[in-house]
């Protein structure tokens, strides 16, 4: 007799046990992080090293209890997923995300006495783990529940809004908030520069990308060469590309006065934009090319057969049908540009990268975060907004295979 049958529980009982393994692992990891790692740390001032505190000291027993209770509920739901488990899991995950900043408020209340004017609260590893795991939970739940991306956008905006409110009104002890308050003018300027660089990069590379893709389609012999060049550009390390552009641009600016008058220099926004556009071209061209080629030949044949002129066929049939994949290209390009623009700070182009490199230089992690967090938020927003748009377009028109009535 197999050993398992000797157990008091029946074998069928085990066979029928189908937990959601992904959620279960994530939630158990969160519990472990919550109790095993430091939740926050407190430094008496900006220079002194901080001391970490575990969950029961940071949140107090009621706070720790509530967090553990919520996670335990998630364990229960994930262990036996029924009809209402996934909506419930989603609700609890969102609740936890919304409660995270309140935990920090609680911690600053417990740990920092009012007379310690210079004291700063830092976010600890357990908190970051929780944040990361909760995002993964949301991804898993979205896939399980077949939620539209639009819902994710809504959740993202709600959570970001709640955090922003907490940070603005009750979290003045948080090191991140203090860094922000010390340089909020510089922050907004950097945010503006960053958005402008990304905006210009994406706009220019969309126009150029579509142009190049159409040229490649016309001259099919050039396809290999064009993709080889674009692929090569992609492999040059970004920092090296910025450096390589320094000399020729400086020479050009010295040679032509009108270029110098335009603000073209060896450092600054010119080399940054050139490099960013060069990187953006490959995903843009490739997606545009694939999108235009993927339109079914039968549909195009019908369009010609109906008597559409080539231009009518292109604008009324090929482009609308290619739009979802084309938007996907714009999404990839945008997300990539948001991240790469951070590096552009090194050559004096400004942007949120400034805080990252300054913070690294001063070993001030909260200043690094001041640069990193908005970049992540921007990338997530761009990803979700453009993804939602592409999904919407696809739904209306997509000739989905399995859906024939």
């Amino acid at each position, binding site marked *: 007799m197999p050993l398992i049958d000797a157990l008091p529980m029946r074998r069928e009982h085990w066979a029928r046990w189908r937990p959601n393994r992904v959620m279960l692992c994530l939630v158990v990891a969160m519990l472990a992080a919550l109790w095993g790692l430091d939740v926050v740390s407190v430094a008496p001032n900006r220079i002194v090293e901080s001391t970490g505190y575990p969950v029961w000291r940071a949140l107090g027993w009621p706070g720790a209890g509530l967090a553990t209770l919520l996670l335990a509920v998630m364990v229960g739901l994930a262990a036996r997923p029924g009809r209402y488990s996934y909506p419930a899991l989603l609700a609890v995950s969102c609740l936890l995300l919304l409660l995270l900043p309140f935990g920090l408020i609680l911690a600053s209340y417990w740990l920092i006495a009012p007379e310690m004017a210079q004291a700063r609260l830092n976010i600890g590893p357990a908190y970051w783990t929780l944040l990361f795991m909760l995002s993964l939970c949301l991804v898993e739940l979205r896939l399980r529940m077949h939620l539209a991306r639009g819902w994710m956008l809504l959740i993202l905006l709600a959570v970001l809004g709640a955090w922003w409110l907490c940070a603005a009104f009750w979290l003045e002890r948080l090191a991140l908030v203090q860094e922000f308050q010390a340089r909020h003018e510089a922050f907004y300027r950097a945010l503006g520069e960053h958005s402008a660089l990304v905006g210009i990069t994406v706009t220019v590379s969309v126009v150029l990308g579509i142009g190049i893709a159409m040229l490649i389609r016309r001259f099919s012999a050039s396809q290999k060469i064009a993709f080889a060049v674009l692929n090569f550009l992609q492999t040059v390390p970004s920092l090296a590309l910025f450096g390589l552009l320094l000399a020729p641009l400086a020479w050009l600016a010295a040679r032509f006065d009108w270029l110098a008058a335009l603000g073209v220099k060896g450092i600054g926004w010119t080399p940054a934009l050139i490099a960013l556009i060069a990187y953006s071209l490959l995903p843009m061209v490739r997606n545009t090319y694939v999108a235009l080629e993927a339109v079914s030949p039968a*549909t195009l044949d019908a369009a*010609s057969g109906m008597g*559409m002129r080539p231009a009518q066929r292109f604008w009324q049939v090929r482009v609308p049908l290619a739009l979802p994949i084309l938007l996907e290209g714009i999404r990839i390009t945008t997300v990539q540009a948001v991240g790469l623009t951070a590096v552009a700070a090194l050559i004096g182009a400004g942007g949120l990268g400034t805080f990252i490199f300054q913070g690294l230089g001063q070993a001030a992690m909260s200043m690094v975060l001041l640069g990193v967090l908005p970049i992540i938020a921007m990338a997530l927003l761009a990803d979700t907004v453009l993804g939602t748009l592409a999904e919407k377009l696809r739904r209306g028109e997509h*000739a989905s295979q399995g859906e024939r009535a």
Partner: protein
Amino acid sequence: MIELHNVSKIFGDALAVDEISFSVPKGKFCALVGTSGCGKSTTLRMINRLTEHSSGDIILDGQAVGAYNPVQLRRRIGYVIQDTGLFPHWNVARNIGTVPRLLKWPASQIRGRVEELMQFLDLPSAEFAHKYPHQLSGGQAQRVGVARALAADPDILLMDEPFGALDPITREKLQSMLAKLQARLHKTVVLVTHDMDEALRLADHLVVMREGKIVQQGSPLALLQKPENGFVDSLLGGLERGLKQASLSRVRAHMTPLGPTLPAQSRIPDTYTLRQALSVMLRDHCERLTVVDKHDVPVGELSLRKLVKEAHAQPGERA
């Protein structure tokens, strides 16, 4: 009126269509039949200049197709293809209105025409106008395809294996729809198909092609009675040719007046085909059938013995 004189098409160094000639008088239905790759689709596409012919003359209403502007030419020729080629990003109404919109008809006129066609093709407008192609069944989609081809009321209709991808029952339905439609509209139709039954059922004129050449052409009956060679014979069904021929004529044309003898038990409506009559004889184990009109009143008699003799004596006429 479509005329082809010694038309050839060369792709690279391959001869796709080799010196073919045939003509389709106005209001007639012509079917191009053959195995796949025989050049029949190419021939069709040369008529609306989706493919340009290499040599010979294609004449449409007295003028060579080369003399027409290809875009204008295609707008006055209806075109239906196998996988419908409906525009997936447009709803049914917009798909049907494609050519009128290209011809810049006023919006109200387009709407009226689309309504009319949808009703004509049994696609209730309230239910279908706002559906997208992927929400339609194969048969519905192809009806939309036919409606789209008819939208600007063209004189000529080109159909490239329109029902090839449909299941047999849907195909049968659409064929009878097309037959009815043609009886009412009298378009000049060229149909490409590899389904011989479809061709026999619909066409006035059959063109059998093989390897770019025309093997034989003529009326369905002429082909059935005298296939030129083994290829045409096998395409026409070989041993089943007799039955196929029987399916071309109606009971009405072969019945004899009611005689003094007792009328037969089994009855058959006079609009049925001879093939169906033969089938009823086999099923009911009898040599005689009583023919009835649509009010179920006996109007004549059909006798197997007479039919067999007749088949030898004279070519039957088509109903």
